Each structure stands twice: as structure tokens, then as C-alpha cells.
């Protein structure tokens, strides 16, 4: 059932026809969408009622389509000049340059009427240039502040640093099905030893300047709700790691790196793009693993295409991955990256299958969001504590910097979402 009296930016009322138009547009553009919607999935019952039937069972559909990432486009409107029902209406867009939106006074939710009359988004890809523009007063608010500059920003009274809750994750994934020479990760004892050898607190301090959280749950703990304690996660125990490696026959060599039957304990550590976000973390992990006799060979991927090709080829022992929880579906990340039946070619090296697949399927078909959270905790427990295919490193926060005049901004933890209704300038 649709809410009545919701207006588009051109003043027309939202009806079921517009909803069908939007879904049809999405299905035509992305026939294999994650919501399992197909050409016949959407039917208009009456002007205020719409019926959705996914092509495959999808118990998470209601949560997915209620996510703010979705929006309804007015029937026949130009996708490049969208006419929607949100709190801001589109004004202009210049590729790689700017996008401008104005407050929509006819927004249906009066409690969320925007404070600012106009928002102008400027695209400045270089982080240093963004900060300089902020300091020069040419921008009011900038995203993705590098943690390395936080100390310098703290001394500037005219600027405020705003952090989100944890929403993005850094983790290592083992290649557990690799062929020689990328088969070391098949050994579960070695995977356990790597988990024990990493000091997450020291890592977060050195690589993210304390602007991240030591993570053991891999996805945001709030997504798991009351079930987060099901995921124990590896604890820092280098002595335990050494014992495990000794028992497995890996003996320290003359340079401190262990060997077994003439084979050096050396892991290809592939750092996915964008490497600038992960390079320091990979170097700290390298030093920590060296302390227990494990060598890592860091390989930085120059762009997303090379990263994808490398991941697909299985030519890695450790893949340095980042994940962003930008869906309401609690199993979004494990389903995406560790479901062995997903047919995504990049999953085949890291997905354990068996119980993990069963747990993911249970999460998909959970009757309600509460049960889905429980199932998600079980999936992650399986991946982190049982299979040990994932070694969580850190939970990352989005870091913004604003001029003191900016008020009402609350940073969203996800990379892809942000609310702007409350933001305004106080002169």
C-alpha cells in the first residue's frame, strides 16, 4: 500500500504506476538484480496498491526495498534529470564537477523538511585538495578525510572532525582452495595462527591513527544485534601462534621465517584497490606476522580491474578485502563474498561451502529481521571462528571534516548513504 498525498517534485501525486515504472526500469537495466525481481514481478493492483512477486523466494525483499538507497522516479522522467519524491529536488548536474539540489517544500514528511535551502556537491577527487579547499573556505564539509591528517586538523579551531559509527571493514581472506604455490591457506592451523598473531589494537593505532575499531565481528556489530557475542573472533596470542606453527612442523629458518620440508612460509598478500586505504595496514600486518615467523609478500593492485582479475585467478594466499554494509540484509557481505553457490567467479577460492552455505541460506529465508540477525551471527561465527577463512582486522569509520558553521550533520556509517535534511549553516 502506498502512502497517499506524496508529491513528486513537479507537483504530481505518486501512484502505483510510478512505482511499477521505476521497478521496470531497474529490472530492464539489471536483469540479475539482487532482489530477484524480474519483468513480471511488479503488478499494479490499484492507484495506491502494488504487488511484488520476486522470481525466486526472497524473504528479505521488504527490508531491501525499504532501504534509502531506493527511490521512485516519476513515470517518463529523464533519469539524468530525476523527478522523485525526496526532501531535495534536482537542480543541475555537471559530470566530474558538481551536483546541485534544492529543498523540496512539498516533501511529505514534515518532520524531515530540510534545513538548508540548497546543497551544492562538488567533486574533488584528491583528498589533500579537498582539505585545502575546506581550509580556504571554498567548501564547508568534506568527506573521506585521511586518518593521517587528523592530528593536524585537531589543532584547527575553525574545523570540526565528524566520525560515523563503524560501517566498513578491513579483513584478510584466505585462499582455501588454491593450487600450488597458492595452497598454504588450505591448512586450517596456519589460518588460526595468522589470526592469533595479529594485534588489532596496535594495528588500528599504527595504520588508522586510532580512527578505527579493532574488529572481531567483520560486519558492524550493530547489524548482529543481541547475537554479536556468538562471534568470538581471534584474540592476540603470538605465543599461541608460534606453538601452533611449531606443532605443524613449521620451523624457524636462519632469517626467522619458518620453513617446512624445504618450503618457506611465505604468503602472497594481495592488497585490493584502492590500495591507499589498506597499504599501511598491510605493512603493519606484515611486521606482526614476521614476529611469529610468517613472511608476507605485499602486492598492491593498481586498479579495480587488476584486483578483480587477480582475485578471480586464485593467485593469492591472502586477499586484503574491504566490505561496506550498505544493505539492510544482515548477511549481505557473507552472502556476497563467501556463498559457494553464488556463481560469482571470485568467490570460488574463499567460500568454504557446506555449513557456511547452509547458514547463509537460513539467513536468506529467515522469517523476520530478528531471526535474520541471529542467522547472520551464525554465518560469521562459521567464517571467523570455525573455518577461520576470514581474519577481521578493523571496523572503519567514515571521517568528515566541516567548518564550524556547519550544523546538524550526522555521518552515516555506510559508504553509499547519507542523510542531508538536518544540515545547515549558521553564519
Amino acid at each position, binding site marked *: 500500500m502506498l502512502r497517499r498525498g506524496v508529491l513528486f517534485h513537479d507537483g504530481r501525486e505518486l501512484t502505483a504506476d510510478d512505482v511499477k515504472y521505476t521497478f521496470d526500469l531497474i529490472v530492464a537495466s539489471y536483469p540479475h538484480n539482487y532482489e530477484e525481481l524480474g519483468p513480471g514481478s511488479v503488478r499494479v493492483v490499484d492507484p495506491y496498491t502494488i504487488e511484488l512477486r520476486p522470481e525466486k523466494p526472497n524473504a528479505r525483499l521488504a527490508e531491501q526495498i525499504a532501504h534509502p538507497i531506493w527511490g521512485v522516479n516519476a513515470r517518463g522522467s529523464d533519469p539524468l534529470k530525476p523527478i522523485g519524491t525526496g526532501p531535495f529536488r534536482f537542480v543541475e548536474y555537471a559530470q566530474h564537477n558538481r551536483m546541485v539540489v534544492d529543498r523540496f517544500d512539498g516533501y511529505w514528511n514534515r518532520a524531515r523538511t530540510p534545513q538548508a535551502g540548497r546543497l551544492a556537491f562538488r567533486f574533488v577527487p584528491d583528498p589533500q585538495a579537498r582539505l585545502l579547499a575546506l581550509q580556504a573556505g*571554498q567548501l564547508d564539509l568534506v568527506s573521506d578525510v585521511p586518518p593521517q591528517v587528523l592530528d593536524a586538523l585537531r589543532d584547527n579551531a575553525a574545523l570540526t572532525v565528524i566520525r560515523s559509527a563503524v560501517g566498513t571493514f578491513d579483513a584478510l581472506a584466505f585462499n582455501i582452495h588454491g593450487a600450488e604455490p597458492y595452497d598454504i591457506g588450505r591448512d586450517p592451523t596456519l589460518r588460526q595462527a595468522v589470526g592469533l598473531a595479529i594485534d588489532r589494537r596496535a594495528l588500528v593505532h599504527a595504520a588508522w591513527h586510532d580512527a578505527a575499531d579493532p574488529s572481531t565481528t567483520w560486519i558492524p556489530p550493530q547489524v548482529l544485534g543481541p547475537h554479536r557475542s556468538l562471534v568470538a573472533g581471534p584474540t592476540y596470542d603470538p605465543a599461541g601462534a608460534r606453538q601452533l606453527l611449531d606443532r605443524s612442523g613449521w620451523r624457524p629458518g636462519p632469517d626467522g621465517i619458518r620453513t617446512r620440508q624445504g618450503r618457506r612460509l611465505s604468503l602472497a598478500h594481495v592488497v585490493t584497490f584502492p590500495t591507499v586505504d589498506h597499504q599501511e595496514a598491510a605493512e603493519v600486518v606484515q611486521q606482526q606476522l614476521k614476529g611469529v615467523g610468517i613472511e608476507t609478500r605485499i602486492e598492491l593492485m593498481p586498479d*579495480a580491474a587488476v584486483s578483480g582479475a587477480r582475485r578471480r585467478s586464485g593467485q593469492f594466499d591472502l586477499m586484503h578485502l574491504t566490505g561496506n554494509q550498505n544493505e539492510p540484509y544482515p548477511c549481505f557481505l557473507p552472502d556476497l563474498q563467501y556463498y559457494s553457490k553464488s556463481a560469482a567467479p571470485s568467490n570460488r577460492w574463499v567460500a568454504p561451502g557446506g555449513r557456511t552455505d547452509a547458514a547463509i541460506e537460513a539467513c536468506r529465508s529467515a522469517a523476520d529481521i530478528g531471526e535474520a540477525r541471529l542467522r547472520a551471527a551464525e554465518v560469521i561465527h562459521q567464517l571467523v571462528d570455525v573455518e577461520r577463512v576470514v581474519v577481521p582486522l578493523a571496523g572503519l569509520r567514515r571521517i568528515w571534516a566541516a567548518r564550524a558553521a556547519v550544523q546538524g550533520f550526522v555521518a552515516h556509517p555506510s559508504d553509499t548513504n547519507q542523510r542531508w535534511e538536518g544540515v545547515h549553516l549558521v553564519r
Partner: protein
Amino acid sequence: MFRFASFGLVLFGVSTLAFALGALAPGDPAELFLERALGRPPTESQIAEQRQVMGLDRTLPRRYAAWLSGLLHGDLGQSWGAGRSVASVLADNAPQTAVLAVTSLLLSLGVSLPLGVASAARPHATVDRASRAAAVVGASIPTFFLGYLMMWIFGVKLGLLPIFGSGSPIYVVLPALTLSFATTGVFTRVIRTGTLAALQEDYVRAALARGASARAALIRHALRNALIPLITVAGLAFGQLLGGAVIVEWIFSWPGLGKLGVDAIHNRDYPLIVGWMLCMGLMAMLTNLAADLACAWADPRVRLRPRDA
């Protein structure tokens, strides 16, 4: 005529190279396109379908032949990333790069001409030494660092100039200054050396003997001859400016060809990469042609004939 035929050969070579490099580069454009569009790793069947849509299921020679055929009909193909014709994407961005590169060149010439002549007029004096030091600094300072320095001085501290973006002419000042820094030093030294050498020539002495003032001998006689190597160097430097624009455009968010090229490579947008390389090659060749014509104008002994070329 010969020159224009050689243009065609060079452009053919550039496009062949671009296609070959594209085939050798790791990464599947179809997979990358889908991963960005869907926000998640695509399946094998999705990738196979997308490869068909992009024409990647055909062999490289067939793709290249189809592209060449399109080119002969004035069609550079469709950009996979932008979803519109490569020609229109390039047309949107090329003028911005041309503005940046030409402004940088004019800035370099505007500063280096008087500085080079002054250095030659009084060798080893303060101006000469200062210009030599500036040339060394200009050649050795990394462009990105210089860019940040310019932003900090003129944007943050003095609040005089915009730090990023494009729009009114004032936006081009900082990126053009940054881009011109290295070439200004080189141009100054070329003018100084050329003018000094010309001042030793008999025709300059003869002019002085005929009663011409030292200033007139310097400007009218020595400088004109010193300009010939400068024109050649400037023609070559324009190509360097186009290359340097990649970094400068990124730092200053200048929406030109440099940034477009980086994005196209990251996206494995092969039609756009090949079109971009052709466009950059064409701009560099036209600039060199202009430099050669200017040389011929400045020195009547220089004539462009096939056997000389």
C-alpha cells in the same frame, strides 16, 4: 601533403598500440562494468552476456577492424562508462585541456622571454643567476607538491584564487601556473643560450657597427634568431604539458582530457582509451606542425619539403 600522410601513419600506430595494450592489460572490462553497476561480483553468465554486449566475445583483430571501419565513417564508437559516443565525451573535455595547456604555454613564454633576454644581456648578473636557480627548482620540484603549495599560498593563506573546479577564467590560473613552472625554466635557458650565441654572430656586430643601439641589436637581430630553437622546444613542450595535465587536472579537479584518460584506464573503457590516445596524439602532432610552420616563418632558410622532412 607528406606531413599529413605521416599523421595518418602515426595515428594508425597509436590506435594499434592502444588496442594491443588493451588486450594485454589484466582485468575484464565486462566484469568491472557489471561489478560497478550491480554493486556486487557478477556471475559467469552475466559476464558472458556483458562481453557480448561490449563486443568482447570477438577476436582482437575483428574488433580492431570494426573500429577502423567505424573511424573511416567518422565514428569513434561508444564509451562503455559514459554510455554515449566517444567523440562527444572527448568534445566535452578537450577544450578544457586545450585551455589549460595553451594558458600554461603562454604563461611560460610570457615569463621566459623577458627573463631569458635579460639573462643574455647581462650574463652571470643577479637576474641570470636567479633565473638559473629558478630553472633548476622548476625542473626538480614534483608537480603534485607544487600544486599543493600553490593552493596553500594563493587559496588558503592569501585567499586570492579558487583551489579547484572550472568556470570563469580565474579558475585556470592556479593549474596553469603549476603546469607552466617547469617549462618556464627550460624556455628561459633556451632563450638565454640562443640570444647569447646570436650576439656573437657577425650580423649582430655589423648591425652595431652600422649604428644600431645595443637594445635594437638584441631585440631585432639576436632575439629573432634565438626564437627558432625556442619554437621547436615549445612545440615539444606542449606534448609534455598535455602529459603533465593528467596530474594537474586530478589535483585541481579540472575537467579535462587528463582526468578523463585516467578514469577511462581505471574503468577499462577501451573505446574511450583508444579515442583519448588518438586525440592526445593528434593534439601533439598539430602542435608540432604549428611549431614547424612558425620556424619556417621565423627563418626563411627553413622550408618544409618532403626530402627535408
